[in-house]
């Protein structure tokens, strides 16, 4: 499973001459960082990292807030017709992006939002919140009613109950959602590919995918690209390994 990562790392650190001479399976003679450096400046990787972080971070926070508001009304508030409302959100979660992509592209052009990071942030906030609403509604549906009633008796209004009681007590679930939304948005490909055409707005995934799709890369560049694409994912993974594996299990059983 990890072999592909190992050979990529191995070859990202080889000079083109060495690669041509001894092929992909030999150990590098020395460490050669120019390939990585060249690739970094050529695609302006710093900008891509900033874009990806900005988009994924905003989506993660906004989508958690939106999911929380929805789930508070459905799970704790038990609003009328809530099975239907929940079904509406689940449906929105299931509709494939392929069936949204052209209208979203067209509408964003009409609104002057095309090729802006904001357009992608808005779209993914809603798409991720569909899943978040579904999961959080189930969690908040089991929220201890006595706690909420006691707070109301003490004079807290609904906002205060949400921010001072529900949010702190649901922190673990909210954390899992935050991490998931961040990683999922970071990895998204189809919609960002369509929506973010200019170099200055592209995310890491789109920039690397487009380069590869155009077959513009030689072997050394490919490996530099692969390694630089793998590294952020590896960092999230090491930092959030527990959250991710626990979260995926929680999500699946719901």
């Amino acid at each position, binding site marked *: 499973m990890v072999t592909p990562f190992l050979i990529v790392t191995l070859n990202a650190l080889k000079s083109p001459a060495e690669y041509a001479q001894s092929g992909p399976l030999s150990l590098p003679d020395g460490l050669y960082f120019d390939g990585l450096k060249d690739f970094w400046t050529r695609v302006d990787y710093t900008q891509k990292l900033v874009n990806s972080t900005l988009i994924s971070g905003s989506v993660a926070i906004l989508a958690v807030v939106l999911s929380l508001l929805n789930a508070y009304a459905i799970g704790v508030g038990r609003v009328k017709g809530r099975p239907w409302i929940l079904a*509406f959100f689940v449906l929105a979660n299931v509709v494939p992006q392929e069936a949204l992509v052209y*209208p979203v592209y067209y509408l964003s052009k009409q609104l002057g939002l095309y090729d802006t990071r904001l357009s992608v942030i808005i*779209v993914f906030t809603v*798409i991720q919140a569909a899943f978040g609403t579904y999961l959080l509604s189930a969690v908040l549906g089991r929220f201890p009613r006595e706690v909420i009633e006691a707070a109301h008796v003490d004079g807290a209004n609904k906002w205060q109950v949400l921010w001072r009681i529900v949010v702190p007590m649901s922190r673990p679930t909210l954390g899992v959602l935050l991490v998931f939304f961040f990683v999922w948005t970071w990895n998204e490909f189809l919609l960002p590919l369509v929506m973010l055409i200019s170099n200055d707005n592209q995310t890491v995934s789109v920039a690397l995918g487009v380069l590869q799709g155009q077959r513009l890369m030689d072997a050394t560049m490919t490996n530099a690209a692969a390694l630089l694409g*793998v590294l952020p994912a590896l960092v999230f993974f090491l930092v959030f390994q527990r959250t991710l594996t626990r979260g995926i299990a929680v999500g699946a059983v719901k």
Partner: protein
Amino acid sequence: MTAPRRRAVASSYAPFLLPGVLAFLAVVIVPFLMNTGLSFTRWQGVGTPEWAGLANYRELMDDSAFWASFRHSLFMVVAMAALPTAVGLVLAAALFDYVGKHFGSRVTTVLRACFYLPQVLPIAVAGIVWSWILAPENGSLNELLKAVGLSGWQQDWLGDPDFALYSVMGVMVWVQLGFPLVVFMAGLERVDPQLYEAAELDGAGWWRRFWHITLPQIRPEISVVLTWCTIAALKVFGAVYVLTKGGPGGATDVPSYFSFTTFFEKTQVGYGSAISTVLTVLILALSLIALRLQNRQEEKPS
């Protein structure tokens, strides 16, 4: 508490739903309805769409590229749902009771993490890694075959129409395997160890315990994983874009990629909408069936 008062309290939570409902209407429902509407028109993306009734759908029925793309979807379901579930089950059981018992939970956690890693990777990056490994010249796989004396097995893995689809399938198994593995391992922690102990006392071997205890006990997880993975397989796009662009000669085209090229390269918006509408109907139907099955399982006393 009296009924009218309860209703008054309940309805006052509605404002919390307002931002969510409005955002969903704007980003999901309206575009979705537009897409469905466009599937009944001819449109190049500029000017006024021209009503065409069912013409796009009739055309789809005769379009061999359309049927081919859905046939490839079935291969993707095998690669992304069936195989990872089957292999994931055996691996999860093996990690859980063999590796876990003999090497400790540390080793298990590390191994699980290794299998899960590809799931965290952007599919575009996984595509870059694999298209280089599978490259015909100087590709690691071909070099490896040469090194072990199997030069005759070397292929243009992604460029040969006879192999491309299977190569993409292989990559997808690698990408997907971690998801079922993690879910199944979490499911196994629920299973009462006494069941295994009793079976062991009765002399049941590993396979019999796997078949008669593990499988039935984590059935809910299996059905969830199969549903999720099948839907993901029907939607696969990034991998095809990066690995093969649907080629060679359409050998790896899938509905998602097919609609993408129809929209943005051929600018036949109406036809592209018809493709994505068919895909959506298929996915919705599948999800409804899965929900039904799950509900029925839950109703059954276990």
